[in-house]
């Protein structure tokens, strides 16, 4: 682990609903422009992130699972030849109720190259997630994140 990015967003929702938004395939498809996550989300289980057409994007192990508060995922890129085998990477999701808002902190620790590829993506995904939960509408596909490029290809 050589580097870390931290993203924080405040969403008007409940921790339970936010947990569902992060882990439920049908939910993630809505705001993540077709991408979906699959797992039983138990500690030690495998998890996968897939493109809309079912191809693998990222896989790994569920390192920690404490619904609806904390989820830690081991993160291996499966689609970019440049990033496969780029060393260990880990994404943590911390959910905290603060007044009427829920604070979501996404911490991604990875090698610089992978971080570069995800760091442009997380803020857009989180903005779309917030918009989808609060207004029922996701944000338009930014078109310049890796996932979108792959989908368009």
């Amino acid at each position: 682990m050589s580097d870390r990015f931290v993203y924080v967003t405040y969403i008007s929702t409940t921790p339970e609903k936010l947990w569902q938004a992060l882990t439920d395939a049908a939910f993630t498809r809505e705001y993540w422009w077709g991408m979906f996550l699959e797992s039983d989300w138990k500690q030690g289980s495998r998890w996968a992130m897939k493109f809309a057409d079912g191809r693998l994007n990222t896989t790994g192990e569920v390192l920690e699972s404490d619904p609806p508060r904390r989820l830690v995922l081991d993160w291996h890129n499966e689609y970019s030849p440049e990033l496969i085998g780029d060393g260990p990477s880990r994404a943590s999701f911390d959910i905290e109720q603060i007044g009427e808002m829920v604070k979501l902190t996404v911490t991604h620790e990875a090698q610089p190259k992978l971080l570069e590829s995800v760091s442009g993506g997380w803020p857009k995904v989180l903005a779309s997630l917030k918009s989808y939960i609060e207004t029922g509408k996701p944000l338009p596909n930014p078109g310049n994140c890796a996932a979108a490029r792959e989908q368009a290809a």
Partner: protein
Amino acid sequence: MSMDAVFKALADPARRRLLDRLYAKNGQTLGSLCDGMAMSRQAVTKHLALLEEANLIAVQWQGREKLHFLNPVPINEIAERWIGKYERHRVQALADLKNRLEGKDSP
């Protein structure tokens, strides 16, 4: 967590400088952020508190060290609110032009 707080936080050159420094090197302590800033530790602490209030920086503890991270989420929201939607019209206009030139109807 209002956009007012974000614009207010960005309206100060010292605070923008702190963000630039975190962009160059993320995850710094107060001590390392004070280096090279022509102001007291107390003043830097105050600026950092304002940036944290605006959610432009996130703080994490690593052992005894309090690390400051640049949080680009609010800036992305500003980009989406003030740039993205205008840009999309232009992209759509170009797509329409292309379709018209190629003799296809607008989708």
